[in-house]
């Protein structure tokens, strides 16, 4: 038995056969005779690589998420880097063939990054190796030949993003890498895929490991190869109890969230972009209680067009079938760096020009977004929710503006669906006048993060205040009780979409208050449903 340690990046126990993942064959030094031809081959390979990366970007964004996709985008940028391309071209001019030149310059740049005293920059070495491997593969016409015929544990030096994307994810039980870090591509992927994994593992990688039995303990950060009977029995028991908790939650999949005494509550998901839909479905959410709109506006140089917004909203609505999707309008302020908004820096952005205040002042921004949502509403069950409300007048202004937008679309002959209009209750003012606001809207959703911050006058970013912070402060509990009561008096529904909604110690309390909906991270749904179903309330 071989035993060793690594840094665990995701909890759990995996037992299976080893698949050693090795890099492409070594690139030998070769000379070229026709330098101009070799330079053209390099140019063509570069164009091909750019095409592949752009396809990979789409695939990654759709299947895994924006974070991994951003890594692919960085690789596209590296491919055009002058130091990289000029270095390669210079080597070709000196008589080396293209594949060898790419390999050498890539290795030199990668080791320069690996030597930096900065974890983020260190991790970029893998990106440079990845694009170099890609170019070499294109230039030499080699196949990418790694296949898994049955489920197993992948053991590798390190895995690059394009290697991980091309793996058959249904068959991977665990990743074990000798290099990497808690923030490496493999680690991020392991967390998204919920599989136990180790990085920085003390393991000698050798093709002879292939097919041997391995145990990976992502709780303790240990591994065993060819385990003895005692270890195998211990680890199998550990795997079983970890699996039982998770599997125990599976029995709640597809069930209605209803308590012993018959109180029903809808369990919805909070998401930040259309690519999160996969996790909404995996998590078994009954709808989307908070679709943030900020992702559509961040990380770009100009306002998104109405069509771009429409396509994003439509894709979510269609993917959810007829299930409810609550879209929150833009909630942005001076604390988010969005240059093209031209927002002046503020002393206190949390209390500043933000969210609905921007929308009600710069109506052109608001109009574009509302038109996009109303157009998308024809493709599913859309509701709109407005953030940072403090007064009845704001709500009336918003409703009048929504009717105007809706009429405008109908006059143009554009179809819209029926859209519920609701508000976030996240200011103490809105909570206190929730009886007045309830008469104006179709629903409330309590944003407990901001409501708590504003009510307790505590900035959550300031760690010094942690000792003073109480998420269950009686003031918040009274507000929550009052908001639900006022909503129900007016005959509208009320939900909670802040972090508190997923606080399992409060589920009973929320049921007692009569909340109709709780919206949480998609991965928390089953756990929360279990709590609702086992509740005595």
């Amino acid at each position: 038995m071989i035993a060793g340690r690594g840094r665990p990046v995701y909890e759990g126990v995996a037992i299976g056969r080893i698949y050693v993942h090795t890099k492409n064959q070594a690139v030998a030094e070769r000379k070229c005779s026709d330098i101009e031809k070799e330079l053209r081959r390099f140019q063509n390979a570069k164009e091909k690589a750019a095409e592949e990366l752009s396809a990979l970007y789409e695939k990654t964004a759709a299947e895994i998420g924006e974070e991994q996709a951003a890594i692919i985008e960085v690789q596209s940028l590296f491919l055009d880097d002058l130091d990289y391309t000029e270095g390669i071209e210079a080597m070709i001019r000196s008589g080396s063939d293209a594949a060898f030149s790419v390999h050498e310059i890539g290795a030199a740049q990668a080791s320069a990054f690996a030597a930096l005293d900065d974890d983020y920059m260190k991790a970029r070495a893998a990106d440079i190796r990845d694009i170099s491997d890609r170019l070499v593969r294109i230039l030499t016409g080699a196949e990418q030949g790694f296949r898994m015929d049955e489920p197993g544990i992948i053991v590798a030096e390190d895995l690059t993003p394009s290697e991980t994307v091309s793996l058959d994810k249904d068959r991977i039980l665990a990743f074990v890498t000798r290099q990497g870090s808690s923030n490496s591509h493999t680690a991020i992927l392991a967390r998204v895929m919920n599989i136990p994994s180790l990085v920085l593992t003390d393991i000698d990688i050798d093709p002879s490991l292939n097919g041997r039995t391995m145990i990976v303990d992502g709780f303790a950060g240990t591994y065993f190869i060819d385990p003895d009977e005692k270890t195998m029995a211990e680890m199998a028991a550990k795997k079983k109890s970890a699996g039982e908790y998770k599997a125990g939650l599976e029995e709640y999949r597809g069930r209605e969230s209803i308590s012993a005494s018959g109180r029903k509550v809808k369990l919805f998901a909070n998401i930040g972009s259309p690519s999160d839909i996969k996790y909404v479905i995996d998590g078994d959410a009954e709808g989307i209680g908070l679709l943030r709109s900020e992702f559509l506006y961040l990380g770009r140089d100009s306002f998104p067009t109405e069509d771009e917004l429409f396509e994003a909203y439509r894709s979510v609505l269609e993917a959810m079938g007829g299930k409810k999707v609550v879209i929150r309008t833009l909630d942005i302020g001076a604390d988010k760096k969005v240059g093209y908004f031209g927002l002046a820096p503020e002393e206190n952005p949390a209390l500043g020009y933000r969210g609905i205040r921007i929308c009600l002042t710069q109506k052109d921004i608001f109009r574009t977004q509302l038109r996009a949502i109303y157009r998308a509403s024809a493709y599913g069950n859309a509701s709109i929710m407005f953030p940072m409300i403090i007064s009845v007048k704001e709500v009336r202004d918003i409703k009048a503006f929504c009717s105007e937008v809706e009429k405008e679309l109908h006059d143009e002959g554009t179809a819209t669906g029926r859209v519920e209009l609701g508000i976030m209750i996240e200011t103490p003012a809105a909570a206190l006048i929730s009886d007045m606001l309830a008469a104006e809207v179709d629903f409330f959703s309590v944003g407990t993060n901001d409501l708590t911050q504003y009510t307790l006058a505590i900035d959550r970013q300031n760690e010094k205040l942690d000792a003073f912070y109480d998420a269950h402060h009686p003031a918040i509990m009274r507000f929550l009780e009052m908001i639900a009561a006022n909503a129900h008096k007016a005959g509208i529904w009320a939900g909670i979409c802040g972090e508190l909604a997923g606080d399992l110690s409060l589920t009973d309390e929320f049921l007692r208050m009569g909340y109709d909906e709780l919206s949480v991270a998609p991965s928390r749904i089953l756990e929360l449903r279990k709590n609702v179903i086992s509740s005595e309330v």
Partner: protein
Amino acid sequence: MKTFDYTVKDELGIHARPAGLLVKQIAGVRSNVTIAVKAKGTSADAKRLMAVMKMAVKQGDVVTVTIDGEDEDTIAPQIEQFFKDNF
């Protein structure tokens, strides 16, 4: 020659994506643009992505940006604005 100092506010420092945007933005300008962190004695040609990234500029670092060439008067304010918006 135009020059300005800027204190990096982004918590990730000058990381890959905005650095890529910067390189794209100035790829076509005629002036030479250099970025330096005097306190660390590092500098790079701002048109070269890997070189800029290898400086590993962190939050709080003061970068000195120098723009030198025939279009410096028009380019300098644009670059300064870009830093304010992105870093």
